[in-house]
C-alpha cells in the first residue's frame, strides 16, 4: 500500500498572531512552525500501517523552501520520502489541485490530510482532493483500518460516530482519534540523522487558478475584563446572563 500524508506547515499554537503589510500578510517574525496537529495524527497512523502492514509512506507539502524543516521532521518521525511542491500555498483549492496532481502521478492508495490546518482553517483540502481525483473520501476520521483494498473508517458525526467501508483509493480527513495524543512520536536522534539522507524531491507546480484570496486580516476586538461574581451570590450570575448577556 502506498500512502501519502499531506503536511501543512503551520504556526505553533502558542504563536502570537500578527499581520504586516497593512494587515494583508501573516507576520512570521519570531513564529515557530510545526507540523499541523491534525496532520500529525495522520502521519502517526501512517507509520502504524508501515510497521504492521508494510506500507510505504511519503509526505508532501505545498510551499516554499522555508517549509522544508517541517518535511524533514516528518521524515525523522519515519516517512520514507518527501515531496515539496514549490509554490506559495495561496488558497485551499489551489493547494488541492497541486496535491491531486501529485497523487495521480504517484498512484497512491491512501492519502491522509488533516481535517483542517490550524492557520487558515479552510477545512477543504482533503475533500477537494477527493473531488478532483474521484477517490472515496471520509472526513473527520477517528479510526482507520485497511484490509486488502477495502478500508473501514470511523468518522466523528455530530453527537456520535459512524462507521463506513470503502474501496481504495481513499482520501482521509484526519484528526485526533486516528491515533491518541500519547501515540504521537517525537523524532529521536537516529531518526533525525536518517532523515538527512532521505529523498526530498522538489517539484514545480501545475498551472491552476486561485479561487479565493485573503484580502485583509482583522484581529478580534480586545476583550473587556471579566466580570467577577461572588461565589455566595450565584443569583447575580443568573441575572447577568439573562439581563445583560441575554443568553438564557
Amino acid at each position, binding site marked *: 500500500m502506498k500512502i501519502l500524508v499531506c503536511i501543512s506547515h503551520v504556526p505553533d499554537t502558542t504563536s502570537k498572531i500578527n499581520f504586516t503589510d497593512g494587515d494583508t500578510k501573516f507576520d512570521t517574525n519570531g513564529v515557530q512552525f510545526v507540523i499541523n496537529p491534525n496532520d500529525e495524527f495522520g502521519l502517526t497512523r501512517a507509520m502504524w500501517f508501515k510497521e504492521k502492514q508494510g506500507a510505504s509512506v511519503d509526505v508532501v507539502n505545498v510551499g516554499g523552501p522555508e517549509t522544508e524543516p517541517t518535511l524533514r521532521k516528518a521524515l525523522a518521525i519515519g516517512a520514507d520520502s518527501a515531496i515539496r511542491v514549490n509554490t506559495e500555498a495561496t488558497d485551499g483549492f489551489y493547494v488541492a489541485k497541486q496535491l491531486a496532481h501529485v497523487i495521480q502521478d504517484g498512484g497512491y492508495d491512501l492519502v491522509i490530510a488533516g481535517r483542517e490546518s490550524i492557520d*487558515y*482553517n479552510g477545512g477543504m483540502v482533503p475533500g477537494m482532493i477527493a473531488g478532483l481525483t474521484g477517490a472515496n473520501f471520509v472526513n473527520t476520521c477517528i479510526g482507520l483500518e485497511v484490509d486488502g483494498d477495502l478500508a473501514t473508517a470511523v468518522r466523528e458525526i455530530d*453527537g456520535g460516530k459512524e462507521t463506513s467501508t470503502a474501496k481504495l483509493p481513499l482520501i482521509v480527513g484526519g484528526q485526533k482519534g486516528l491515533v491518541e495524543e500519547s501515540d504521537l512520536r517525537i523524532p529521536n536522534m537516529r531518526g533525525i540523522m536518517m532523515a538527512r539522507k532521505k529523498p526530498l524531491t522538489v517539484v514545480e507546480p501545475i498551472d491552476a487558478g486561485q479561487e479565493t484570496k485573503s*484580502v485583509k486580516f482583522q484581529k478580534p476586538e480586545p476583550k473587556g475584563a471579566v466580570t467577577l461574581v461572588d461565589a455566595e451570590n450565584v443569583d447575580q450570575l443568573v441575572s*447577568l446572563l439573562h439581563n445583560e448577556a441575554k443568553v*438564557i
Partner: protein
Amino acid sequence: MSVLVYTESDSGKFKKSAFEAASYAKEVAAMLGVAVTAVSINGGDSSELGTYGVDKVLEVKNDDLTNFNAKAYADILKQAAQKEGAKVVVVSSTADSKFLAPLLAVHLDAGYASNVVALPESASPFVVKRTAFTNKAFSMTEMSTDVKVIGLSNNAFGLKENSGDAAAEVFEPVLSQDDFSTQITAVDRASDKVSIADAEIVVSGGRGLKGPEHWGMIEELADVLGAATACSKPVSDMGWRPHGEHVGQTGKPVASNLYIAIGVSGAIQHLAGINASKVKVVINNDPEAPFFKAADYGIVGDAFDVVPKLIEKLKEFKSNNA
C-alpha cells in the same frame, strides 16, 4: 437565478442550523436581488422554511439516502445548483455539511469559504468575513469564481424570520452507482442528548472536577439549560469522558452562544477551540487560571459548592420565566 441553501434534517426534522442557513441565504439573496431555493433531502415539513424566507424547496425523497452520504448529497446539490442557476450556495457548519462542501465546490468549480461569520461585505467583489488562525483572527476573503460555496459558522448569524412561499417541488436528481461507493455500516449516536455542534449552550468540565464520578452535576446543569456537555483534553485523555466530548483545538470546535467552563484552567489550545462562543463563563477555584482572562463572567470558588447552587438558581429562574 437564486441563492441555493442546503437545509439539513435529522430524522425527518430540520436542524436549527438549517433555519440559520436559510436566514442567511435570504439576506444574501436580497443583496443580489434574487430568490432563495432550499434543497431538502428526506427532510421535514417544507413550509417551516418559509418562516425564514425560503421561496422554493426542492424536495428529494429517496430511501437510498436515509443515511448521509457525502458523495451522493454533493451530487444532488450540484444538480440543484445547476438547475436553479445558483451563483451562491449556502451550507451550515455541521459535520455533514463540512464533509460535503469541498466536494460540491469541486463539482461546481466554485470557491469555498468555510467558517463565515457575517453577510458578504460586498457583492462585487464578493468578500466574506471568516474566522482564521483558530479564532485568533478574521480573514476578509475575496471569492472570484462565478459560483461560490459559503459555509456559515454555527450560531454566527442567528435566526431571522422572513416570509417566503416555500413552494415545494419534487426533485429527482440522477444518481450514479459511484455516488454510493461508500457504505455506511453503523451509526452510533446518542439521540437523547444535545450535540455540541447543535447546542446554543455548552457546559464543559475540566480536571478540576477531580474524577468522572463528579460529572452528575455537569449533566444536571446541562439538562437545566438544554445544553450539550463537553470536556477539556486531559479529561478525555484520562478516559473520564468520551473523546467525542473533547473540545479545543484538536477536539471539536465550539461556537455556542454561551459556554460555561467548570474546573477548566483554560490552556491556549482549549481557548482556541472555544473562542468563537459569544459569552464565556468560568467557574474555578484558582483566580490565576488563564480562563479568567478569556471569560466574560467568572466565579472564583469551589465548583462542588458553586455548581449545585447555580443549578438551584437556574431552576428557580426557569420556573419563574416558563
